[in-house]
Protein backbone atom coordinates (compact mmCIF):
# COMPACT_ATOMS: atom_id res chain seq x y z
CA UNK A 1 0.00 0.00 0.00
CA UNK A 2 1.40 3.35 -1.04
CA UNK A 3 1.27 6.64 0.76
CA UNK A 4 -1.10 9.42 -0.11
CA UNK A 5 -0.14 12.98 -0.96
CA UNK A 6 -2.11 16.07 -1.89
CA UNK A 7 -1.46 19.60 -3.09
CA UNK A 8 -3.76 22.55 -3.76
CA UNK A 9 -3.12 25.90 -5.40
CA UNK A 10 -4.85 29.25 -5.72
CA UNK A 11 -2.81 30.76 -8.55
CA UNK A 12 0.77 31.67 -9.48
CA UNK A 13 2.00 35.25 -9.56
CA UNK A 14 1.35 37.32 -6.46
CA UNK A 15 1.80 41.03 -5.87
CA UNK A 16 4.50 41.51 -3.24
CA UNK A 17 2.37 44.36 -1.83
CA UNK A 18 -0.71 42.20 -1.30
CA UNK A 19 -2.25 43.29 2.04
CA UNK A 20 -1.53 40.98 4.91
CA UNK A 21 -5.22 40.47 5.55
CA UNK A 22 -5.71 39.02 2.08
CA UNK A 23 -2.65 36.84 2.48
CA UNK A 24 -4.15 35.46 5.69
CA UNK A 25 -7.51 34.75 4.09
CA UNK A 26 -5.79 32.90 1.28
CA UNK A 27 -3.73 30.81 3.67
CA UNK A 28 -6.80 29.95 5.70
CA UNK A 29 -8.71 28.82 2.64
CA UNK A 30 -5.84 26.70 1.41
CA UNK A 31 -5.46 25.15 4.86
CA UNK A 32 -9.15 24.37 5.06
CA UNK A 33 -9.15 22.74 1.62
CA UNK A 34 -6.05 20.77 2.40
CA UNK A 35 -7.64 19.46 5.59
CA UNK A 36 -10.75 18.45 3.71
CA UNK A 37 -8.64 16.48 1.29
CA UNK A 38 -6.55 14.93 4.05
CA UNK A 39 -9.63 13.75 5.94
CA UNK A 40 -10.99 12.15 2.78
CA UNK A 41 -7.68 10.46 2.01
CA UNK A 42 -7.52 9.08 5.52
CA UNK A 43 -10.94 7.54 4.89
CA UNK A 44 -9.62 5.94 1.72
CA UNK A 45 -11.58 8.09 -0.67
CA UNK A 46 -10.12 7.68 -4.19
CA UNK A 47 -7.83 10.31 -5.70
CA UNK A 48 -10.31 11.43 -8.34
CA UNK A 49 -13.05 11.93 -5.72
CA UNK A 50 -10.70 13.88 -3.47
CA UNK A 51 -9.68 16.16 -6.32
CA UNK A 52 -13.29 16.89 -7.12
CA UNK A 53 -14.35 17.63 -3.58
CA UNK A 54 -11.39 19.89 -2.87
CA UNK A 55 -11.80 21.89 -6.07
CA UNK A 56 -15.52 22.23 -5.31
CA UNK A 57 -14.56 23.85 -2.03
CA UNK A 58 -12.22 26.25 -3.79
CA UNK A 59 -14.91 27.09 -6.35
CA UNK A 60 -17.55 27.71 -3.70
CA UNK A 61 -15.39 30.09 -1.69
CA UNK A 62 -15.40 33.52 -3.37
CA UNK A 63 -11.79 34.31 -2.55
CA UNK A 64 -10.00 32.82 -5.57
CA UNK A 65 -10.81 33.09 -9.25
CA UNK A 66 -13.11 30.11 -9.77
CA UNK A 67 -16.80 29.43 -9.36
CA UNK A 68 -18.10 32.21 -7.17
CA UNK A 69 -15.52 34.99 -7.27
CA UNK A 70 -14.55 34.28 -10.87
CA UNK A 71 -13.00 37.07 -12.91
CA UNK A 72 -15.46 38.85 -15.21
CA UNK A 73 -15.63 38.91 -18.99
CA UNK A 74 -15.62 42.21 -20.87
CA UNK A 75 -19.42 42.15 -20.57
CA UNK A 76 -19.37 41.83 -16.81
CA UNK A 77 -20.55 38.23 -16.88
CA UNK A 78 -18.83 35.07 -15.70
CA UNK A 79 -17.68 32.25 -18.00
CA UNK A 80 -16.03 29.43 -16.12
CA UNK A 81 -14.00 26.45 -17.23
CA UNK A 82 -12.50 23.39 -15.63
CA UNK A 83 -10.93 20.04 -16.34
CA UNK A 84 -10.30 16.87 -14.40
CA UNK A 85 -8.23 13.82 -15.19
CA UNK A 86 -7.93 10.37 -13.68
CA UNK A 87 -4.41 9.07 -14.14
CA UNK A 88 -5.28 5.39 -13.88
CA UNK A 89 -6.74 5.07 -17.35
CA UNK A 90 -6.08 8.66 -18.39
CA UNK A 91 -9.78 9.36 -18.55
CA UNK A 92 -10.60 13.03 -18.64
CA UNK A 93 -13.40 15.56 -18.71
CA UNK A 94 -13.48 19.29 -19.38
CA UNK A 95 -15.94 22.16 -19.70
CA UNK A 96 -15.74 25.75 -20.92
CA UNK A 97 -18.14 28.67 -21.14
CA UNK A 98 -20.04 27.64 -18.03
CA UNK A 99 -22.42 30.34 -16.82
CA UNK A 100 -24.94 28.73 -14.48
CA UNK A 101 -23.39 25.59 -13.06
CA UNK A 102 -22.34 26.11 -9.45
CA UNK A 103 -19.40 23.74 -9.58
CA UNK A 104 -17.75 23.46 -12.97
CA UNK A 105 -15.29 20.80 -11.79
CA UNK A 106 -18.20 18.48 -11.07
CA UNK A 107 -19.63 19.10 -14.49
CA UNK A 108 -16.24 18.24 -15.97
CA UNK A 109 -16.36 15.03 -13.98
CA UNK A 110 -19.79 14.22 -15.36
CA UNK A 111 -18.54 14.82 -18.89
CA UNK A 112 -15.84 12.27 -18.17
CA UNK A 113 -18.15 9.74 -16.51
CA UNK A 114 -21.51 10.22 -18.14
CA UNK A 115 -20.99 11.44 -21.69
CA UNK A 116 -19.37 9.84 -24.74
CA UNK A 117 -17.12 12.88 -25.05
CA UNK A 118 -14.22 14.52 -23.21
CA UNK A 119 -14.98 18.22 -23.54
CA UNK A 120 -18.25 20.14 -23.67
CA UNK A 121 -18.69 23.87 -23.88
CA UNK A 122 -21.11 26.76 -23.72
CA UNK A 123 -24.78 26.07 -24.33
CA UNK A 124 -24.13 22.41 -25.06
CA UNK A 125 -22.43 22.00 -21.70
CA UNK A 126 -25.22 23.86 -19.92
CA UNK A 127 -27.79 21.64 -21.62
CA UNK A 128 -25.90 18.55 -20.51
CA UNK A 129 -25.79 19.95 -16.97
CA UNK A 130 -29.56 20.41 -16.95
CA UNK A 131 -30.10 16.88 -18.18
CA UNK A 132 -27.82 15.59 -15.45
CA UNK A 133 -29.75 17.51 -12.82
CA UNK A 134 -26.69 19.44 -11.72
CA UNK A 135 -27.18 22.41 -9.37
CA UNK A 136 -27.52 25.64 -11.36
CA UNK A 137 -27.87 29.28 -10.35
CA UNK A 138 -28.13 32.64 -12.08
CA UNK A 139 -24.91 34.05 -13.46
CA UNK A 140 -25.15 36.85 -10.84
CA UNK A 141 -24.37 34.35 -8.13
CA UNK A 142 -20.78 34.12 -9.32
CA UNK A 143 -20.24 37.88 -9.58
CA UNK A 144 -18.71 39.59 -6.56
CA UNK A 145 -18.61 43.31 -5.83
CA UNK A 146 -14.84 43.23 -5.71
CA UNK A 147 -14.70 41.88 -9.23
CA UNK A 148 -17.17 44.40 -10.57
CA UNK A 149 -14.84 47.11 -9.29
CA UNK A 150 -11.87 45.27 -10.71
CA UNK A 151 -13.42 45.06 -14.14
CA UNK A 152 -13.94 48.82 -14.13
CA UNK A 153 -10.30 49.37 -13.30
CA UNK A 154 -9.27 46.93 -15.98
CA UNK A 155 -11.30 48.72 -18.60
CA UNK A 156 -9.79 52.01 -17.49
CA UNK A 157 -6.39 50.49 -17.82
CA UNK A 158 -7.65 49.17 -21.17
CA UNK A 159 -5.79 45.99 -20.88
CA UNK A 160 -6.31 42.37 -19.96
CA UNK A 161 -6.42 42.11 -16.23
CA UNK A 162 -5.87 38.97 -14.33
CA UNK A 163 -7.77 38.64 -11.16
CA UNK A 164 -6.53 41.22 -8.72
CA UNK A 165 -7.12 40.94 -5.02
CA UNK A 166 -6.06 44.32 -3.66
CA UNK A 167 -9.15 46.03 -2.20
CA UNK A 168 -10.87 48.73 -4.22
CA UNK A 169 -9.62 52.23 -3.73
CA UNK A 170 -6.26 51.74 -5.34
CA UNK A 171 -6.16 53.12 -8.83
CA UNK A 172 -4.89 50.94 -11.62
CA UNK A 173 -2.49 53.72 -12.45
CA UNK A 174 -0.76 53.60 -9.12
CA UNK A 175 -0.25 49.92 -9.59
CA UNK A 176 1.81 50.53 -12.67
CA UNK A 177 4.40 52.44 -10.68
CA UNK A 178 4.25 50.30 -7.57
CA UNK A 179 6.14 47.30 -8.77
CA UNK A 180 8.71 46.69 -11.45
CA UNK A 181 7.72 43.03 -11.78
CA UNK A 182 5.60 42.01 -14.74
CA UNK A 183 3.41 39.11 -15.77
CA UNK A 184 1.62 38.81 -19.09
CA UNK A 185 2.86 42.27 -19.94
CA UNK A 186 1.20 43.88 -16.96
CA UNK A 187 2.61 45.06 -13.63
CA UNK A 188 2.40 42.20 -11.21
CA UNK A 189 0.24 44.21 -8.85
CA UNK A 190 -2.55 43.95 -11.38
CA UNK A 191 -1.91 40.34 -12.26
CA UNK A 192 -3.08 37.48 -10.09
CA UNK A 193 -4.69 34.66 -12.07
CA UNK A 194 -5.81 32.78 -8.96
CA UNK A 195 -6.94 29.79 -10.96
CA UNK A 196 -7.43 26.91 -8.50
CA UNK A 197 -6.36 23.32 -8.66
CA UNK A 198 -5.74 20.14 -6.77
CA UNK A 199 -3.61 17.06 -7.35
CA UNK A 200 -3.83 13.87 -5.35
CA UNK A 201 -2.27 10.44 -5.14
CA UNK A 202 -4.17 7.98 -2.94
CA UNK A 203 -3.00 4.93 -1.03
CA UNK A 204 -3.50 2.77 -4.10
CA UNK A 205 -1.00 4.92 -5.97
CA UNK A 206 -3.69 6.39 -8.23
CA UNK A 207 -3.02 9.94 -9.37
CA UNK A 208 -5.60 12.54 -10.29
CA UNK A 209 -5.65 16.26 -11.09
CA UNK A 210 -8.21 19.03 -11.48
CA UNK A 211 -8.15 22.72 -12.37
CA UNK A 212 -10.88 25.37 -12.38
CA UNK A 213 -11.03 29.06 -13.25
CA UNK A 214 -13.04 32.09 -14.29
CA UNK A 215 -10.19 33.10 -16.60
CA UNK A 216 -8.86 36.57 -17.34
CA UNK A 217 -10.49 39.72 -16.04
CA UNK A 218 -12.01 41.63 -18.96
CA UNK A 219 -11.47 38.69 -21.30
CA UNK A 220 -13.21 38.51 -24.65
CA UNK A 221 -16.44 36.56 -24.64
CA UNK A 222 -15.71 32.99 -25.60
CA UNK A 223 -12.07 33.13 -24.61
CA UNK A 224 -10.77 29.74 -23.51
CA UNK A 225 -7.58 29.45 -21.47
CA UNK A 226 -5.31 26.64 -20.39
CA UNK A 227 -7.37 25.36 -17.46
CA UNK A 228 -9.79 23.18 -19.43
CA UNK A 229 -7.17 21.96 -21.90
CA UNK A 230 -5.95 18.49 -21.12
CA UNK A 231 -2.18 18.52 -21.40
CA UNK A 232 -1.89 22.23 -20.73
CA UNK A 233 -3.55 23.13 -17.41
CA UNK A 234 -4.28 19.60 -16.24
CA UNK A 235 -2.80 16.16 -16.77
CA UNK A 236 -2.66 12.86 -14.93
CA UNK A 237 -1.08 9.56 -15.84
CA UNK A 238 -0.08 6.37 -14.05
CA UNK A 239 3.00 8.25 -12.84
CA UNK A 240 1.75 11.65 -11.72
CA UNK A 241 -0.98 14.26 -11.47
CA UNK A 242 -0.37 17.91 -12.42
CA UNK A 243 -2.33 21.18 -12.23
CA UNK A 244 -0.94 24.44 -13.61
CA UNK A 245 -1.67 28.15 -13.24
CA UNK A 246 -0.20 31.36 -14.60
CA UNK A 247 0.05 32.84 -18.08
CA UNK A 248 -2.40 30.77 -20.08
CA UNK A 249 -0.60 31.19 -23.38
CA UNK A 250 2.69 30.01 -21.93
CA UNK A 251 1.04 26.98 -20.35
CA UNK A 252 -0.72 26.00 -23.58
CA UNK A 253 2.30 26.40 -25.83
CA UNK A 254 4.46 24.39 -23.51
CA UNK A 255 1.80 21.73 -22.82
CA UNK A 256 3.08 22.18 -19.29
CA UNK A 257 1.07 19.57 -17.38
CA UNK A 258 1.66 16.89 -20.00
CA UNK A 259 5.35 17.61 -20.11
CA UNK A 260 5.89 16.81 -16.44
CA UNK A 261 4.59 13.32 -17.10
CA UNK A 262 6.35 13.01 -20.45
CA UNK A 263 9.70 13.89 -18.91
CA UNK A 264 9.16 11.25 -16.22
CA UNK A 265 8.02 8.67 -18.75
CA UNK A 266 10.62 9.29 -21.40
CA UNK A 267 13.63 10.48 -19.47
CA UNK A 268 12.97 8.23 -16.52
CA UNK A 269 13.49 10.94 -13.93
CA UNK A 270 11.62 11.49 -10.69
CA UNK A 271 8.92 14.05 -9.97
CA UNK A 272 11.12 16.80 -8.52
CA UNK A 273 13.53 16.65 -11.40
CA UNK A 274 10.70 16.61 -13.95
CA UNK A 275 8.99 19.63 -12.39
CA UNK A 276 12.26 21.55 -12.12
CA UNK A 277 13.05 20.75 -15.73
CA UNK A 278 9.75 21.89 -17.21
CA UNK A 279 9.61 25.05 -15.13
CA UNK A 280 13.14 25.94 -16.11
CA UNK A 281 13.14 24.89 -19.76
CA UNK A 282 9.61 24.77 -21.07
CA UNK A 283 8.24 28.19 -20.27
CA UNK A 284 10.60 30.32 -22.38
CA UNK A 285 9.56 33.87 -21.54
CA UNK A 286 6.35 32.79 -19.86
CA UNK A 287 5.46 32.78 -16.17
CA UNK A 288 3.61 29.95 -14.53
CA UNK A 289 3.51 27.53 -11.66
CA UNK A 290 2.27 24.02 -11.01
CA UNK A 291 1.61 21.47 -8.32
CA UNK A 292 2.26 17.78 -8.86
CA UNK A 293 2.11 14.44 -7.10
CA UNK A 294 3.70 11.15 -8.08
CA UNK A 295 2.46 7.61 -7.71
CA UNK A 296 5.23 7.19 -5.13
CA UNK A 297 3.52 9.59 -2.72
CA UNK A 298 5.71 12.59 -3.48
CA UNK A 299 4.40 16.13 -3.82
CA UNK A 300 6.20 18.98 -5.56
CA UNK A 301 5.41 22.61 -6.35
CA UNK A 302 7.31 24.64 -8.91
CA UNK A 303 6.96 28.15 -10.28
CA UNK A 304 9.09 30.73 -12.01
CA UNK A 305 7.10 33.78 -11.02
CA UNK A 306 6.68 35.85 -7.90
CA UNK A 307 4.95 33.47 -5.54
CA UNK A 308 2.18 30.91 -5.80
CA UNK A 309 -0.68 30.31 -3.37
CA UNK A 310 -0.23 26.65 -2.46
CA UNK A 311 -0.56 23.99 0.15
CA UNK A 312 0.66 20.40 0.28
CA UNK A 313 0.59 17.45 2.62
CA UNK A 314 1.80 13.87 2.69
CA UNK A 315 0.77 10.86 4.70
CA UNK A 316 3.89 10.92 6.85
CA UNK A 317 2.64 14.14 8.47
CA UNK A 318 4.27 16.81 6.34
CA UNK A 319 2.03 19.83 5.77
CA UNK A 320 2.80 23.28 4.41
CA UNK A 321 0.81 26.27 3.21
CA UNK A 322 2.87 28.93 1.48
CA UNK A 323 2.86 31.87 -0.87
CA UNK A 324 6.40 32.93 -1.55
CA UNK A 325 9.60 31.07 -2.43
Amino acid sequence: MGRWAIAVHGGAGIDPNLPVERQEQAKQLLTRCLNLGIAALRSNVSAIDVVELVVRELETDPLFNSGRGSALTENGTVEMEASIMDGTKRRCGAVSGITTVKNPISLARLVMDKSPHSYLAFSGAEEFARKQGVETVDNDYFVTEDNVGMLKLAKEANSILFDYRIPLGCAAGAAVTDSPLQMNGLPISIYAPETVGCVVVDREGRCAAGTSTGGLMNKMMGRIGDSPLIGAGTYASELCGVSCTGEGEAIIRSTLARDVSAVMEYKGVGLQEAVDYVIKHRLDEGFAGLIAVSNKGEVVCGFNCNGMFRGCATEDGFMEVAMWE
Partner: protein
Amino acid sequence: MVGWAIALHGGAGDIPMDLPDERRIPRETALRHCLDLGVSALKSGRHPLDVTELVVRELENHPDFNAGKGSVLTTQGTVEMEASIMDGKTKRCGAVSGLTTVVNPISVARLVMEKTPHIYLGFDGAQAFARAHGVETVESSHFITPENIARLKQAKEFNRVQLDYTAPTPNLPEVSGDSQIGTVGCVAVDSAGNLASATSTGGYVNKMVGRIGDTPVIGAGTYANHLCAVSATGKGEYIIRATVAREVAALMEYKGLSLTEAAAYAVEQSGPRGCCGLVAVSANGEVAMPYNTTGMFRACATEDGYTEVAIWPKN
Protein backbone atom coordinates in the same frame (compact mmCIF):
# COMPACT_ATOMS: atom_id res chain seq x y z
CA MET B 1 20.16 23.85 -45.33
CA VAL B 2 17.57 21.13 -45.80
CA GLY B 3 14.71 20.94 -48.24
CA TRP B 4 11.10 21.79 -47.74
CA ALA B 5 8.43 19.18 -47.07
CA ILE B 6 4.66 19.12 -46.82
CA ALA B 7 2.07 16.57 -45.80
CA LEU B 8 -1.69 16.80 -45.60
CA HIS B 9 -4.59 14.57 -44.64
CA GLY B 10 -8.31 14.35 -45.20
CA GLY B 11 -8.98 12.10 -42.23
CA ALA B 12 -8.15 8.64 -40.90
CA GLY B 13 -10.78 5.97 -40.33
CA ASP B 14 -12.47 2.85 -41.49
CA ILE B 15 -12.27 3.66 -45.18
CA PRO B 16 -13.36 0.52 -47.00
CA MET B 17 -10.95 -0.82 -49.56
CA ASP B 18 -13.82 -1.33 -51.97
CA LEU B 19 -14.69 2.35 -51.96
CA PRO B 20 -16.37 2.93 -55.31
CA ASP B 21 -14.49 4.98 -57.90
CA GLU B 22 -17.02 7.77 -57.85
CA ARG B 23 -16.24 8.27 -54.18
CA ARG B 24 -12.53 7.62 -54.32
CA ILE B 25 -11.44 9.59 -57.36
CA PRO B 26 -12.78 13.03 -56.39
CA ARG B 27 -10.99 12.75 -53.07
CA GLU B 28 -7.71 11.64 -54.55
CA THR B 29 -7.97 14.46 -57.04
CA ALA B 30 -8.63 16.92 -54.25
CA LEU B 31 -5.66 15.66 -52.26
CA ARG B 32 -3.41 16.00 -55.27
CA HIS B 33 -4.74 19.47 -56.00
CA CYS B 34 -4.15 20.60 -52.44
CA LEU B 35 -0.69 19.09 -52.48
CA ASP B 36 0.15 21.00 -55.65
CA LEU B 37 -1.11 24.22 -54.11
CA GLY B 38 1.00 23.68 -51.04
CA VAL B 39 4.09 22.74 -53.02
CA SER B 40 3.76 25.82 -55.22
CA ALA B 41 3.46 28.01 -52.20
CA LEU B 42 6.55 26.48 -50.60
CA LYS B 43 8.50 26.84 -53.84
CA SER B 44 7.55 30.54 -53.92
CA GLY B 45 9.01 30.95 -50.48
CA ARG B 46 5.75 31.31 -48.56
CA HIS B 47 6.02 30.72 -44.84
CA PRO B 48 4.65 27.37 -43.61
CA LEU B 49 1.95 29.20 -41.66
CA ASP B 50 0.65 30.61 -44.94
CA VAL B 51 1.10 27.29 -46.70
CA THR B 52 -0.75 25.20 -44.13
CA GLU B 53 -3.53 27.77 -43.86
CA LEU B 54 -4.12 27.90 -47.58
CA VAL B 55 -4.09 24.12 -47.96
CA VAL B 56 -6.52 23.67 -45.11
CA ARG B 57 -8.78 26.38 -46.54
CA GLU B 58 -8.87 24.41 -49.75
CA LEU B 59 -9.75 21.22 -47.89
CA GLU B 60 -12.42 23.07 -45.90
CA ASN B 61 -13.98 24.28 -49.14
CA HIS B 62 -14.14 20.78 -50.55
CA PRO B 63 -17.48 19.17 -49.64
CA ASP B 64 -16.17 15.62 -49.45
CA PHE B 65 -14.03 16.16 -46.37
CA ASN B 66 -15.26 16.67 -42.84
CA ALA B 67 -14.29 20.31 -42.40
CA GLY B 68 -15.87 23.56 -43.47
CA LYS B 69 -18.32 22.65 -46.18
CA GLY B 70 -19.10 18.98 -45.78
CA SER B 71 -18.73 19.04 -42.00
CA VAL B 72 -20.61 16.29 -40.22
CA LEU B 73 -23.70 17.27 -38.24
CA THR B 74 -24.39 17.55 -34.54
CA THR B 75 -27.26 15.67 -33.00
CA GLN B 76 -29.43 18.69 -33.78
CA GLY B 77 -28.55 18.63 -37.45
CA THR B 78 -26.37 21.72 -37.19
CA VAL B 79 -22.72 22.31 -37.99
CA GLU B 80 -20.16 23.27 -35.33
CA MET B 81 -16.67 23.65 -36.74
CA GLU B 82 -13.34 23.90 -35.00
CA ALA B 83 -9.73 24.43 -36.01
CA SER B 84 -6.27 25.27 -34.76
CA ILE B 85 -2.93 26.42 -36.13
CA MET B 86 0.55 26.53 -34.61
CA ASP B 87 3.89 28.02 -35.56
CA GLY B 88 6.85 25.81 -34.67
CA LYS B 89 9.54 28.44 -34.20
CA THR B 90 7.64 30.69 -31.83
CA LYS B 91 5.08 28.11 -30.61
CA ARG B 92 2.42 30.74 -31.09
CA CYS B 93 -0.95 29.21 -31.70
CA GLY B 94 -4.60 29.95 -32.37
CA ALA B 95 -7.75 27.88 -32.04
CA VAL B 96 -11.51 28.17 -32.49
CA SER B 97 -14.53 26.01 -31.69
CA GLY B 98 -18.24 26.17 -32.30
CA LEU B 99 -18.20 28.14 -35.55
CA THR B 100 -21.44 27.89 -37.48
CA THR B 101 -21.30 30.36 -40.36
CA VAL B 102 -17.64 31.01 -41.05
CA VAL B 103 -16.54 29.65 -44.40
CA ASN B 104 -12.94 29.01 -43.30
CA PRO B 105 -12.50 28.23 -39.63
CA ILE B 106 -8.72 27.80 -39.99
CA SER B 107 -8.40 31.45 -40.95
CA VAL B 108 -10.25 32.52 -37.84
CA ALA B 109 -7.88 30.39 -35.78
CA ARG B 110 -5.02 32.25 -37.41
CA LEU B 111 -6.63 35.60 -36.65
CA VAL B 112 -7.05 34.63 -33.01
CA MET B 113 -3.34 33.87 -32.93
CA GLU B 114 -2.32 37.10 -34.63
CA LYS B 115 -4.93 39.64 -33.61
CA THR B 116 -5.83 38.82 -30.02
CA PRO B 117 -3.92 38.38 -26.78
CA HIS B 118 -5.65 35.01 -26.48
CA ILE B 119 -5.14 31.59 -28.01
CA TYR B 120 -8.58 30.08 -28.18
CA LEU B 121 -12.06 31.49 -28.76
CA GLY B 122 -15.24 29.47 -28.80
CA PHE B 123 -18.85 29.61 -29.90
CA ASP B 124 -20.70 32.92 -29.78
CA GLY B 125 -17.55 34.78 -28.83
CA ALA B 126 -15.66 33.26 -31.75
CA GLN B 127 -18.49 34.03 -34.17
CA ALA B 128 -18.62 37.64 -32.94
CA PHE B 129 -14.86 37.94 -33.34
CA ALA B 130 -15.03 36.57 -36.87
CA ARG B 131 -17.76 39.04 -37.79
CA ALA B 132 -15.82 41.91 -36.25
CA HIS B 133 -12.88 41.00 -38.47
CA GLY B 134 -14.94 40.85 -41.62
CA VAL B 135 -14.29 37.15 -42.11
CA GLU B 136 -16.41 35.57 -44.81
CA THR B 137 -19.60 34.04 -43.46
CA VAL B 138 -22.54 32.33 -45.12
CA GLU B 139 -25.85 30.78 -44.15
CA SER B 140 -25.10 27.66 -42.17
CA SER B 141 -27.03 25.63 -44.73
CA HIS B 142 -24.02 26.17 -47.03
CA PHE B 143 -22.00 23.65 -45.02
CA ILE B 144 -24.62 20.92 -44.91
CA THR B 145 -24.47 18.21 -47.55
CA PRO B 146 -27.09 15.55 -48.33
CA GLU B 147 -24.58 12.84 -47.48
CA ASN B 148 -24.18 14.22 -44.00
CA ILE B 149 -27.91 14.51 -43.44
CA ALA B 150 -28.23 10.85 -44.35
CA ARG B 151 -25.25 9.97 -42.20
CA LEU B 152 -26.79 11.68 -39.19
CA LYS B 153 -30.05 9.83 -39.71
CA GLN B 154 -28.19 6.57 -39.82
CA ALA B 155 -26.17 7.39 -36.71
CA LYS B 156 -29.32 8.25 -34.82
CA GLU B 157 -30.82 4.99 -35.83
CA PHE B 158 -27.79 3.21 -34.61
CA ASN B 159 -28.06 5.49 -31.61
CA ARG B 160 -24.40 5.84 -31.22
CA VAL B 161 -21.67 8.37 -31.80
CA GLN B 162 -19.46 7.39 -34.68
CA LEU B 163 -16.87 8.63 -36.99
CA ASP B 164 -18.74 9.57 -40.08
CA TYR B 165 -18.52 6.40 -42.02
CA THR B 166 -20.89 3.47 -41.97
CA ALA B 167 -21.04 0.69 -44.48
CA PRO B 168 -24.47 0.56 -46.09
CA THR B 169 -26.42 -2.25 -44.49
CA PRO B 170 -29.80 -3.69 -45.44
CA ASN B 171 -32.96 -2.03 -44.16
CA LEU B 172 -31.20 1.19 -43.42
CA PRO B 173 -31.53 4.38 -45.37
CA GLU B 174 -29.23 4.47 -48.32
CA VAL B 175 -26.32 6.58 -47.18
CA SER B 176 -24.51 8.04 -50.13
CA GLY B 177 -22.09 5.62 -48.80
CA ASP B 178 -18.73 7.24 -48.88
CA SER B 179 -16.05 7.19 -46.32
CA GLN B 180 -15.97 10.82 -45.50
CA ILE B 181 -13.78 10.66 -42.47
CA GLY B 182 -13.13 13.21 -39.77
CA THR B 183 -10.78 16.14 -39.92
CA VAL B 184 -8.38 17.71 -42.39
CA GLY B 185 -4.90 18.96 -41.73
CA CYS B 186 -1.62 20.10 -43.15
CA VAL B 187 1.95 20.37 -41.90
CA ALA B 188 4.84 22.03 -43.65
CA VAL B 189 8.49 22.92 -43.22
CA ASP B 190 10.48 25.30 -45.42
CA SER B 191 14.17 25.22 -46.19
CA ALA B 192 14.88 27.59 -43.30
CA GLY B 193 13.40 25.09 -40.87
CA ASN B 194 10.21 27.07 -40.18
CA LEU B 195 7.45 24.66 -39.23
CA ALA B 196 3.68 24.93 -38.99
CA SER B 197 0.65 22.75 -38.44
CA ALA B 198 -3.02 23.41 -39.16
CA THR B 199 -6.07 21.21 -38.50
CA SER B 200 -9.80 21.71 -39.07
CA THR B 201 -12.95 19.64 -38.58
CA GLY B 202 -16.70 19.40 -38.21
CA GLY B 203 -16.21 16.77 -35.47
CA TYR B 204 -18.25 13.57 -34.93
CA VAL B 205 -21.52 12.62 -36.56
CA ASN B 206 -24.34 13.02 -34.07
CA LYS B 207 -22.05 14.68 -31.55
CA MET B 208 -23.61 16.53 -28.64
CA VAL B 209 -24.00 20.23 -29.25
CA GLY B 210 -21.00 21.93 -27.67
CA ARG B 211 -18.77 18.91 -27.94
CA ILE B 212 -15.15 19.85 -28.50
CA GLY B 213 -12.74 17.30 -29.94
CA ASP B 214 -9.01 17.10 -30.30
CA THR B 215 -8.70 19.38 -33.29
CA PRO B 216 -8.66 22.74 -31.48
CA VAL B 217 -6.77 21.42 -28.45
CA ILE B 218 -3.12 22.38 -28.82
CA GLY B 219 -1.02 19.32 -28.11
CA ALA B 220 -3.80 16.91 -29.05
CA GLY B 221 -4.79 17.50 -32.69
CA THR B 222 -2.16 20.09 -33.55
CA TYR B 223 1.38 20.79 -32.40
CA ALA B 224 4.55 22.33 -33.74
CA ASN B 225 7.89 23.22 -32.21
CA HIS B 226 11.43 23.63 -33.50
CA LEU B 227 11.68 19.89 -34.21
CA CYS B 228 8.49 18.98 -36.00
CA ALA B 229 4.91 19.85 -36.93
CA VAL B 230 2.07 17.39 -36.43
CA SER B 231 -1.62 17.20 -37.32
CA ALA B 232 -3.69 14.30 -36.00
CA THR B 233 -7.03 12.81 -36.98
CA GLY B 234 -9.28 10.09 -35.65
CA LYS B 235 -11.24 9.55 -32.46
CA GLY B 236 -10.94 12.82 -30.64
CA GLU B 237 -11.39 11.49 -27.15
CA TYR B 238 -8.34 9.20 -27.52
CA ILE B 239 -6.23 11.87 -29.17
CA ILE B 240 -6.92 14.29 -26.31
CA ARG B 241 -5.97 11.97 -23.50
CA ALA B 242 -2.86 10.78 -25.32
CA THR B 243 -1.86 14.31 -26.41
CA VAL B 244 -0.94 12.71 -29.72
CA ALA B 245 0.51 15.69 -31.59
CA ARG B 246 2.65 16.74 -28.64
CA GLU B 247 3.70 13.14 -28.14
CA VAL B 248 5.52 12.98 -31.46
CA ALA B 249 7.63 16.00 -30.53
CA ALA B 250 8.13 14.82 -26.95
CA LEU B 251 9.44 11.45 -28.11
CA MET B 252 11.90 13.18 -30.41
CA GLU B 253 12.99 15.58 -27.68
CA TYR B 254 13.11 13.31 -24.67
CA LYS B 255 13.90 9.96 -26.18
CA GLY B 256 15.83 11.06 -29.22
CA LEU B 257 13.58 9.12 -31.59
CA SER B 258 13.52 10.00 -35.26
CA LEU B 259 10.38 11.54 -36.74
CA THR B 260 9.33 8.23 -38.25
CA GLU B 261 9.82 6.29 -35.03
CA ALA B 262 8.19 8.96 -32.87
CA ALA B 263 5.18 9.28 -35.17
CA ALA B 264 4.65 5.54 -35.37
CA TYR B 265 4.98 5.13 -31.62
CA ALA B 266 2.59 7.99 -30.88
CA VAL B 267 -0.08 6.45 -33.10
CA GLU B 268 0.46 3.01 -31.67
CA GLN B 269 0.19 4.24 -28.09
CA SER B 270 -2.80 6.47 -28.66
CA GLY B 271 -5.39 3.77 -28.11
CA PRO B 272 -6.92 0.69 -29.65
CA ARG B 273 -6.60 -0.07 -33.35
CA GLY B 274 -8.72 2.20 -35.45
CA CYS B 275 -8.42 5.28 -33.35
CA CYS B 276 -6.01 7.63 -35.07
CA GLY B 277 -3.57 8.75 -37.72
CA LEU B 278 -1.34 11.75 -38.22
CA VAL B 279 0.87 13.60 -40.64
CA ALA B 280 4.15 15.07 -39.52
CA VAL B 281 7.20 16.81 -40.92
CA SER B 282 10.52 17.43 -39.23
CA ALA B 283 12.86 20.40 -39.31
CA ASN B 284 15.10 18.21 -41.46
CA GLY B 285 12.53 17.91 -44.21
CA GLU B 286 11.36 14.38 -43.38
CA VAL B 287 7.76 13.25 -43.60
CA ALA B 288 5.78 10.62 -41.68
CA MET B 289 2.13 9.63 -42.15
CA PRO B 290 1.31 6.72 -39.81
CA TYR B 291 -2.21 5.54 -38.93
CA ASN B 292 -3.73 2.57 -37.14
CA THR B 293 -7.03 2.73 -39.00
CA THR B 294 -8.00 0.98 -42.22
CA GLY B 295 -6.94 4.00 -44.18
CA MET B 296 -6.13 7.68 -44.14
CA PHE B 297 -6.67 10.15 -46.97
CA ARG B 298 -3.22 11.65 -47.31
CA ALA B 299 -0.61 13.25 -49.54
CA CYS B 300 2.93 14.46 -49.15
CA ALA B 301 5.85 15.87 -51.06
CA THR B 302 9.46 16.71 -50.36
CA GLU B 303 11.89 18.96 -52.14
CA ASP B 304 13.90 16.07 -53.55
CA GLY B 305 10.94 15.24 -55.77
CA TYR B 306 9.12 12.57 -53.78
CA THR B 307 5.34 12.78 -53.87
CA GLU B 308 2.60 10.50 -52.67
CA VAL B 309 -1.18 10.55 -52.70
CA ALA B 310 -2.77 7.58 -50.98
CA ILE B 311 -5.62 6.21 -48.93
CA TRP B 312 -4.64 2.72 -47.83
CA PRO B 313 -1.31 1.11 -46.96
CA LYS B 314 1.04 0.80 -49.88
CA ASN B 315 1.60 -2.79 -50.86
